[in-house]
């Protein structure tokens, strides 16, 4: 198994994001190292040094948070770099290893980024499940309404959240928030929508994508 590695990023926006990460990493890196030295120097200063060193530590923490957030760029790049293809939710859920409950017999075809969407589905199921690892896995239901193909993912355990939207925020260092942020980025990159809502004090993820236009012959044109 000595196959060649895939290209860094497949070009276009993806490549630009990779370059941006690289460009940001350089000054952040230098600043971090310089602050580290400053902190060490201050620690040796008898008076006043300690309180200044405390401030430097604060700045270092800010920098570290920025450093962590730029790690989202390569992941956004891989979403941006993946071409969309024709698929169905049934197919994606199967590939993601998440059972989808019986839905419409003729599942509508969608134009989606396959790997990124599979990741997003896994992140959501994982997130809902991780709030109560001992409960049954979340339920997935496909619905079709008002020109959109929709998917509900219902948690069967854990508590709700009075302001689920805040779960998508990129707070400093909350990994789940970052995961959800990426899941949303992925869904939206294909023209979809992702929301988390509270129903009967449980969390439910609502996803939807525009239904593709139907061709005159009755098949789905994409």
């Amino acid at each position, binding site marked *: *198994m*000595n*196959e060649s*590695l*895939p*290209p*860094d*990023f497949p070009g276009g926006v993806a490549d630009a994001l*990779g*370059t941006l*990460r*690289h*460009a*940001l*990493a*350089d000054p*952040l*890196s*230098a*600043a*971090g*190292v*310089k602050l*580290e*030295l400053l902190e*060490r120097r201050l620690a040796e200063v008898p008076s006043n040094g300690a309180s200044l060193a405390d401030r430097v530590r604060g700045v270092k923490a800010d*920098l*570290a948070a920025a*450093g*962590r957030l*730029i*790690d989202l*760029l*390569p*992941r956004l790049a*891989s979403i941006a770099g993946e071409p969309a293809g024709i698929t169905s939710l049934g197919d994606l859920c199967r590939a*993601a*290893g998440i059972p989808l409950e019986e839905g419409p017999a003729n599942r509508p075809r969608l134009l989606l980024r396959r790997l990124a969407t*599979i*990741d997003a589905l*896994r*992140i959501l*199921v*994982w997130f809902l*499940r*991780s*709030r*109560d*690892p*001992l*409960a049954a*896995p979340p339920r997935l239901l496909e619905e079709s309404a008002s020109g959109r193909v929709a998917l509900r993912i219902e948690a069967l*355990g*854990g*508590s709700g959240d009075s302001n689920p939207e805040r779960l998508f925020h990129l*707070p*400093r*260092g*909350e*990994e789940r928030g970052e995961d959800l942020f990426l899941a949303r980025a992925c869904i939206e990159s294909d023209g979809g929508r992702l929301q988390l809502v509270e129903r009967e004090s449980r969390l439910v993820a609502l996803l939807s994508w525009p239904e593709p236009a139907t061709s005159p012959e009755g098949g789905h044109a994409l």
Partner: protein
Amino acid sequence: MKVLVVEDEPGAREAIVELVKELGYEASGVGTVADASSALVTLRPDVCIADLGLPDGDGFDVVRNARAAGRDCAVVVLTGRGSVRSAVEAMKAGAHDFLLKPLKTSQLAATLTQLSERHDEARGAQNAGLPDPAAEGGLAGMVGRSAPMLEVYRLLTRVARSNAPVMITGESGTGKEVAASTVHLLSRRATRPFIAVNCGAISPTLVESELFGHEKGAFTGADRRRAGTFEMAHGGTLFLDEVTEMPPELQVKFLRVLETRTFRRVGGSEELDMDIRLIASSNRDLADAVRRETFRADLYYRLNVFPLRLPSLRERKEDVPLLANHFLSEIEKKERRGFSSFEPGALDALASHSWPGNVRELRNAVHRAYVLSDPPAIEAEAAEAVLTDSGTAEPRPLVRDEETWPAVEVRVGETLQAVEKKVLTATLLAVKGDKRLAAELLGVSLKTVYNKLKEYQLET
């Protein structure tokens, strides 16, 4: 220890040089590949920290030049792209390790500490080196002196010194776990923990907290903070056995941990450094798992930096007598019945067998022949009997055909547990220890098989 910093941006270079000095090492800096090449000769550094993007080339060139100069200088590549290619390619090119920018002082310090330990060791034990495996008949717990094994030892000793992830493949029973622990023993991490995690045996919902630990209140039932495997293996080696079985959700997580070299406990925001050498193993075709989408391609590239394939026992039949004697003395040490050798006929019988279950099968066969023989030598009939009775000349059946399987005897009134144990043992024996196939035949999950093996304290 002398460190050379190769970084084109002067401010960053000076800062890193100063920090390295601050950490207690000699340090100097240059800004180009050309200057690095001459510094390799004049300064004779032990470690080179090289930025990936340099004006007249890249970090890979520094790696190549260091190797060409014939100096034992470990190159650590700094990369800012966070892509698979830069990190993996640097290590494939022979870099000791890579560090991601923004550089973390803790990670730089840990890398240099490790390298300085190796440096001192190398200085202390100049040329003492390892004993010659061909003469010894093995290497640190691995037995065999056939050509394919000597090649395995060569690769293994080479990779053990770096931090690169190793991917060990080979049929069931070829010694993948033994090889993993050998890499650990030969590495600078030898005095730190070696922890094996069976990816098929972990429950997908709890695995995350098992590996990464969790904070109090992270989820229903998390009533106190708990350290995970990653924290416990800190500084050591983590062996991911049967890595293709890793739940998909976890693969995403793992990938990120490998990319950033940091992890967080479930429900926590504190970033912890990952200082672990990863070794993965699989007895299935990994490339195929990638094609079938059950294993992520990006994770595969990250783990497959250094592939190591273990030969089947069929490919190294000349090792059979050596291994058989090794197992005999191991068993004798425990059971002390006064055995010291094999009758020539017994060795002939072992030599003509095809060993679909590889070294594990050989070890079990020797053990059973030991039970059937009278001291001081393993008898030819006993060896023949254990080989025919396990039906091992047959290739592994691919279809489920009950008729061809041996029967187990069950009495009325026997506890269900006892029956379960019998059936499990017999099935595993029939499939030469292939737990996945056994699970399939028994209609349970792989995880259940592992749990039962643990419950009944059966050897795997």
